[in-house]
């Protein structure tokens, strides 16, 4: 059996006497370049790989020697779909190093607001354009739009509201330029923010309709119990911008303790590091984890939408992540509106941050899960060392376990259908392969 990399692209399977291989060499509707490979011997699943072949981009090395103030803008370039997450984890880590805390008032509100914009952009793209076609049986959003134009229009309308929020608070829709260590370069006026009320109110209505719609989709009846890891906000908020890293298996650590509990290792088939909890192994971050650990912190409107959609306090079916993501769309629209309503332009758009020789840690909730940054900086603010652990490398093992389970549950499906089911299982976790391939440890085996 030849290696997947030698094969032409496209979903296909190969049927031998005993050996059966299901693979897709170029995954569609995920961010970045990856492939999957599943090998069966009779009815035994002998090998499962989520291959990430997008080339590594060495961001951590690139950061060394740069000024601590540059980290948010440099790391934002890791990903076009979640740049705010990178900026927010970076500023939190740098402020942690410099002993500055921005945990209340309009500056924190603005940070959560722009983060809500990113959740709206990213989740609406995923729910409507990337994930929904799986459930409705289409190859992609374009094919789905021909029959279900109104659904795609809803997604575009919601994404537009997220784009508008991002452009106003961040300076532009993609790779915002207004975020800095200590706050923002410019704080918007209340009048400017109020221009977002109409589109956000419409987006919130659409999000509520989305929850109702996705709740009725046809889900495979599966449950996957594994450790769920997310931030827990120390106040009353749904986890986005701060908090301890907690899990349903008892993990409860400050971001500074991340390295003590999470190990990353290189595996041959992937250009992304695999993360695991040192004591226990595979874990999952992202909407399912946030919801399970903090659904009590959802705003009442989002909580009610979740309840009406039939979600219990924990959702263990990864195929239903589309429902949880839609609930988070309600949450993000509703919270954005609440922030705009109480907003008063701060006296200064940022607080002074003076560098000192120290190590800082920052963890925030990217749309697809926990994003951890660690920086060591010098007295003059030069970055001595950087470490970034994106959600997709944390989720890789869980995704591979899902693939294995999906195949074991659906062995009798013909190859093409099994392949599609596997791809759907990957898309359940909205992996961002571009984010996952910035790592530094490159092993070259020349025999």
């Amino acid at each position, binding site marked *: 059996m030849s290696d997947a990399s030698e094969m032409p692209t496209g979903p296909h399977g190969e049927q031998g006497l005993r050996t059966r291989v299901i693979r897709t060499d170029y995954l*569609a509707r*995920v*961010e970045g370049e990856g492939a999957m490979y599943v090998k069966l011997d009779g009815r035994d699943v002998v090998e499962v790989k989520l291959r990430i072949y997008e080339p590594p981009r060495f961001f951590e090395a690139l950061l060394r020697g740069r000024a601590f103030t540059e980290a948010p803008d440099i790391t934002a370039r890791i990903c076009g779909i979640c740049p705010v997450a990178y900026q927010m984890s970076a500023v939190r880590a740098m402020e942690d190093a410099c002993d500055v805390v921005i945990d209340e008032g309009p500056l924190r509100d603005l940070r959560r607001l722009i983060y809500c914009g990113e959740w709206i952009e990213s989740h609406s793209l995923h729910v409507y354009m990337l994930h929904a076609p799986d459930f409705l049986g289409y190859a992609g*959003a*374009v094919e789905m739009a021909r029959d279900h134009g109104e659904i795609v*229009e809803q997604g575009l309308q919601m994404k537009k509201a997220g*784009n508008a929020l991002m452009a106003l608070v961040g300076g532009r829709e*993609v790779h915002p330029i207004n975020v800095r260590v200590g706050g923002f370069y410019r704080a918007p006026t209340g009048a400017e923010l109020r221009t977002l009320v109409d589109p956000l109110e419409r987006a919130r209505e659409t999000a509520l309709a989305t929850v109702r719609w996705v709740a009725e989709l046809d889900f495979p009846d599966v449950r996957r119990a594994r450790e769920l890891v997310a931030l827990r906000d120390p106040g009353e908020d749904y986890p986005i911008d701060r908090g301890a890293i907690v899990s349903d298996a008892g993990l409860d650590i400050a971001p500074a303790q991340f390295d003590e509990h999470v190990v990353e290792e290189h595996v041959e088939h992937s250009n992304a590091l695999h993360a695991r909890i040192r004591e226990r192994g595979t874990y999952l971050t992202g909407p399912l984890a946030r919801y399970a650990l903090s659904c009590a912190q959802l705003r009442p409107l989002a909580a009610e939408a979740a309840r009406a959609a039939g979600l219990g306090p924990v959702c263990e079916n990864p195929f239903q992540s589309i429902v949880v993501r839609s609930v988070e769309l309600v949450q993000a629209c509703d919270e954005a509106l609440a922030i705009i309503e109480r907003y008063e332009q701060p006296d200064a758009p940022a607080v002074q941050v003076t560098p000192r020789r120290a190590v800082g840690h920052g963890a925030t909730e990217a749309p697809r899960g926990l994003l951890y940054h660690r920086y060591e900086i010098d007295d003059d603010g030069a970055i001595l060392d950087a470490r970034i652990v994106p959600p997709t490398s944390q989720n890789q093992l869980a995704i591979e376990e899902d693939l294995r389970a999906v195949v074991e549950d659906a062995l009798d499906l013909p190859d093409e259908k099994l392949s599609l089911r596997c791809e759907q299982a990957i898309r359940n976790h909205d992996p961002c392969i571009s984010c996952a391939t910035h790592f530094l440890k490159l092993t070259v085996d020349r025999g």
Partner: protein
Amino acid sequence: MIGVGNALRHDDAAGLEVVRRVRELVDPERVAVIEHVGEQSALLDIWEGAAAVVLVDAIRSDASAGTIHRVDASERPLPAPPWGSSSTHAIGVAEAIELARALGRLPAQVIVYGVEGVRFDAGIGLSKEVGDAMGVLTDTVSHEVRSMAA
């Protein structure tokens, strides 16, 4: 008139550069000239209400660097490759056009120009080949835009 590209990826800036030049040559009352650097699903809103669209982008196919391609996308999809999204990241120009067509939001006339790029790595400045093609491309595009808007 829409130029698409990334100003920080060498030849990917070609579409932006062309529309900057064409802006000086067309009637601003009749032609909206837009440099679009964001993601492509936004194109559906950008061309909302337009009678006709001319879009310019850098592409990469087997042609020699600086080659100018012209495709009428009014009736049929852009051939992919090379017009499809260059990665699996969301939506490319070809997908945005097809999404608009499926939703009934495609202007009646859509002409897409592509200039064959050679450098798409990080950095500023067009390659010599693409830079040399800018004059002809600007003349061709501005002529077509002016005749459409006449």
